[in-house]
């Protein structure tokens, strides 16, 4: 059974804005937020990259209760916040699921026919690391503090106090740590919060997680396994000691050698030096069978018409040179949509800003599409939100098709290849858009969208 599938709702939390309206407004103004990394991280390591894109979000304004804030990792909090906006934008009424319940139900829909498809690269690594540090340091800190105060020679105390400061940790080992760190916590939290009892699955596919989740949600609706999919990605990459950042930094993947913070992040530019690490974010789409959407009079943002995924089988951390599997994936996604490459008007590229990614990606785009298709990178604005990025970029693709315009590829002064990069805001007439993601491990995924007229 093959059914038409549309996007009827969206929600987003990002470094440049929370909420679809604000986010899109900031995208079209080429907004980015780039600041020095937290100073305390430099107490633990000499970092080569010193910039990131911080995320400011208010759990209360995302509808998160005090109990949820205490029980959930931020990755799940962000997921709930974006899902709530998406569900409300899709026109569903949120009704308390029961007396004293913190959950909602959606009375207009059969909840057993609603699936949750969610992507994350590292799940609750934030909670794992914060509690790991607590586990390791608590007794050492206590013993050293007693020694410093009671037995250490006065001359050593200042140095010991410096060491004690480095051993700072959370006051408690959190009783909910397991349910906070497990990668499926975000999708589970969304299912619990909105009482959705259809399939509920987590895709842990590094930087492609969001695209894979949207793609699988789309397929589930198309094939009639569900009527509605709440699909997206969420990521939270902060920890007190800069541990997660350091992992990407030592791998040599992050921006460095920049003239200024504002110009450091430059996908597809000759002077690119790596990706801008983002603190995190979340993007969620409500994906719905067309007739189901029409029956309830839902506003339709765009139609989802194709999806494909391939695997490089080459390297954990590098794209296979030549991009053979990426090309196969793009062609398969376009075939899945019953289209030809020349039908595609706009590509939201993976566009990280690393030497390897961007070079391979432009070569493949040139081979498959030539110079006609418009190309931009949402990561040139947000930095890399890892498992959230694909879902946020799917949202950007839908908004670009709907509004006939898209954001620029920021800081692109000297393109590495003469493609049709978006370098100024202008009106155009896109009917078909493609959003693609590639991941550590070698996973490639792309979705194809059509403007809904």
């Amino acid at each position, binding site marked *: 059974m093959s059914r038409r599938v549309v996007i009827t709702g969206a929600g987003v939390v990002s470094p440049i804005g929370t909420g679809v309206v604000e986010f899109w407004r900031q995208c079209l103004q080429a907004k980015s937020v780039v600041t020095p990394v937290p100073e305390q991280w430099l107490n633990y390591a000499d970092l080569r990259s010193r910039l990131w894109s911080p995320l400011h979000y208010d759990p209360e304004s995302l509808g998160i209760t*005090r*109990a949820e804030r205490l029980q959930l990792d931020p990755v799940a909090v962000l997921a709930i916040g974006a899902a709530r906006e998406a569900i409300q934008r899709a026109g569903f009424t949120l009704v308390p699921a029961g007396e004293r319940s913190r959950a909602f139900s959606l009375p207009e829909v059969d909840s057993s026919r609603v699936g949750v498809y969610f992507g994350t690269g590292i799940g609750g690594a934030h909670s794992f690391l914060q509690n790991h540090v607590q586990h390791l340091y608590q007794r050492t800190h206590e013993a050293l503090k007693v020694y410093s105060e009671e037995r250490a020679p006065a001359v050593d105390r200042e140095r010991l106090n410096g060491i004690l400061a480095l051993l700072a940790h959370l*006051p*408690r080992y*959190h*009783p*909910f740590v397991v349910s906070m760190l497990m990668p499926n916590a975000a999708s589970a939290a969304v299912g619990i919060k909105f009482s959705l009892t259809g399939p509920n699955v987590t895709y842990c596919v590094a930087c492609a997680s969001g695209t894979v989740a949207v793609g699988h949600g789309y397929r589930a609706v198309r094939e009639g396994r569900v009527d509605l999919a709440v699909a997206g990605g969420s990521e939270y990459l902060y920890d007190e000691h800069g541990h997660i950042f350091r992992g990407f930094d030592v791998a040599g993947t992050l921006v460095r050698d920049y003239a200024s913070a504002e110009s450091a992040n430059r996908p597809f530019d000759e002077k690119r030096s790596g990706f801008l690490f983002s603190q995190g974010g979340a993007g969620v789409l409500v994906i719905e069978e067309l007739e189901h959407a029409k029956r309830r009079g839902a506003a339709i943002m765009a139609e989802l018409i194709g999806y494909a995924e391939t695997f490089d089988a080459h390297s954990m951390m590098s794209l296979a040179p030549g991009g053979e599997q990426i090309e196969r994936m793009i062609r398969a996604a376009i075939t899945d949509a019953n289209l030809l490459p020349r039908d595609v008007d706009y590509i939201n590229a993976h566009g990280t800003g690393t030497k390897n990614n961007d070079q391979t990606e432009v070569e493949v785009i040139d081979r498959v599409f030539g110079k006609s298709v418009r190309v931009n990178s949402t990561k040139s604005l947000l930095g890399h939100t890892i498992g959230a990025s694909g879902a946020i970029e799917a949202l950007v693709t839908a908004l670009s098709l709907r509004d006939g315009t898209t954001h620029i590829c920021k800081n692109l002064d000297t393109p590495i290849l003469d493609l049709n990069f978006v370098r100024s805001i202008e009106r155009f007439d896109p009917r078909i858009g493609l959003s693609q993601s590639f991941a550590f491990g070698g996973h490639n995924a792309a979705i194809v969208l059509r403007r809904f007229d």
Partner: protein
Amino acid sequence: MNANVQQRVFKIISEIINREESEIRLDASLQKDLQASSLDQMTIFIALEDEFERTIPQDEVTDLRTVKDIVDFIHKKIQEPSPT
């Protein structure tokens, strides 16, 4: 009894178990009267740790049954020096 402590404990309990503060009485049992689950109760103590900036080990609270037990416990706890 410090009325301010009691007020803050009531507020936390009401937020965690999603009841009006007016529904909470000192003699109410967390489990029987307020129907707080074991997860709710753990969350209440995490929230109390944050609110009063004291560490509350689980083995110190296993015998607390009523709201008054908690208020009394917190009252004693805040007499202890604050961790630096």
